[in-house]
């Protein structure tokens, strides 16, 4: 922090280590327990014997729960919704950063205002709108609402505003169309910002739960998170008289497998994650 700060002592390291354990242990516990024979999750929750590790809980879970469908639906929503965010938000951000046009301030004001709109207020009318359109249990319902979000536009506008106008004009002199300037000049320059946007969008779409659980109730359209949320009921429904251990084994297996993709992305791309998280605090 500064020159006068002392080297951190053992107390400081101990505090940070305790915190790190508190944050990481539940994840480790879920992973390690999911690999244990189901009965041992209850009989000895602390122990983890590598020799006993097996994929029994995973095999049972895949047989009992439509988790494959959940992954497929989440992947589909992620690809389409993500593509819409990644294309339209920087484009709109570019217009707000680099053009002057009548009504610009008013329109940007609307964008900022929607930033403050809590998701909850829209849930009920959106659900009704979906049922009027016949879109309950559809991919459209999962993808379209929120597909071009105000926050991403705001963020991209900030990144694009930093690009010197000369660079854009040089592109125009070379005969590029207005869109061509965006695609060939703006996009390459803001690539790090786009990477952060991609990572954060992936996390948000992948983890989204409130809207999917309300908009979709048939198994064939459920996203991964919705499948997870009904997992325990599903297991007990499919295996009458299943004991706690069996159900828990499958719950932990499903939870672990659902966590894995994002944790891997996070560890590999943490720089982008962190700049994505911080981009949000700029608006405060």
């Amino acid at each position, binding site marked *: 922090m500064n020159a006068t700060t002392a080297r951190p002592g053992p107390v400081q390291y101990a505090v940070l280590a305790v915190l790190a354990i508190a944050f990481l242990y539940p994840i480790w516990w879920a992973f390690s327990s999911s690999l244990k024979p189901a009965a041992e999750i209850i009989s000895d929750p602390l122990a983890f014997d590598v020799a006993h590790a097996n994929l029994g809980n995973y095999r049972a879970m895949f047989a009992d729960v439509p988790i494959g469908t959940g992954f497929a639906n989440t992947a589909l929503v992620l690809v389409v919704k993500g593509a819409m965010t990644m294309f339209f938000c920087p484009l709109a951000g570019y217009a707000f950063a680099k053009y002057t046009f009548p009504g610009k301030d008013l329109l940007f004001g609307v964008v900022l205002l929607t930033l403050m709109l809590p998701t909850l207020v829209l849930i009920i009318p959106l659900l009704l709108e979906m049922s009027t359109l016949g879109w309950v249990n559809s991919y459209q319902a999962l993808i379209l609402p929120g597909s071009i979000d105000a926050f991403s536009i705001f963020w991209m506008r900030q990144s694009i505003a930093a690009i010197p106008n000369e660079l854009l004009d040089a592109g125009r002199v070379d005969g590029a169309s207005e869109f061509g300037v965006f695609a060939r000049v703006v996009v390459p320059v803001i690539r790090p910002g786009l990477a952060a946007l991609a990572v954060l969008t992936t996390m948000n779409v992948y983890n989204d739960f409130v809207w999917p659980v309300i908009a979709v109730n048939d198994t064939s359209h459920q996203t991964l998170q919705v499948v997870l949320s009904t997992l325990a009921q599903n297991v007990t429904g499919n295996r009458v008289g299943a004991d706690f251990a069996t159900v828990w084994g499958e719950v932990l297996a499903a939870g672990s497998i659902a966590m894995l993709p994002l944790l891997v992305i996070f560890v590999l791309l943490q720089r982008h994650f962190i700049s994505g998280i911080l981009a949000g605090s700029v608006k*405060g």
Partner: protein
Amino acid sequence: MSSLTTMTRTGRAARDLPRGRRARWLPPYLFIAPFFVVFAAFGVYPLVFALQLSFTRWHGAGAATWVGVGNYAYLLTSPDFWASLANSAVMWLLIVPLQIIAGLGAAVLLANAKLRLRGFFRVAFIAPFVTPLVAMAQVWIVVFDQDYGLANHLLNLVGLPDVGWLTSTVWSKPTLALLFLWKTTGFAIIILLAGLQAVPDSVYEAAGLDGASRWRQFWSLTVPLVRRSIAFLMVVQTLAVFQMFAEPFVVTKGGPYGSTTTAGLYLYDHITASDLGTGAANSFLLVLLVFGLSLGAVRLLRPRDEVR
């Protein structure tokens, strides 16, 4: 790269110069149009519809009956509505002050330039923020199960009796608050750390020369300087706590005895009860409350000289 930075300096002046003759009025509208189309269809329309709905009694089919402010009056006199707000307020008290104080403490430790393993600590702290909430909520059910869970297993090991983490009205809120804290404190730490790192070293050096103790430095320098970050966190986390839905929905279903029926979950109850007019009215009341609370938080944390 260096030519790019020199160009930035002259960029501001160039912006006001007249551009070429080609028609430039259309492209920006085309570029922002997709957002406004989606917003009109899935933002404005439902909002207007919800506002209208909030003045009617409607169960999702048949004709809606106009009831004026009846839904609002019903909610404002309903003990369940107030109980849901009270539950959320208790959650807020359990979560936000602790998160900001602990987060600031951890951020100060992490900001120390001589700290080793900073990268590891940062990854460890944010990892929970990345995990899907629903998955961890399931883990919470298992860990805090009264009869077979890990938490009581640990208590028993040190000779303490079982605690009804999710089955007693005393413990249900703290147990859910713990999930929220576990999941989002890393986020708070990162925001506060960025705020701290924006404070110039010279400020601390000057304080050090003045002989201010480290503790005094923390209270009279660090805290005021990260006020903006704290205000941001207060707003974001107040919004999040009052909209808290997935945690009680998955872990406790609002129980035991409604003790974890948060404002967000109570709203959902109107949907399951097909009482949509009341639900819409409830949404607007909640939005007003959350806006008021965020404004209050921002005002409270505004630097003194900016007030009035």
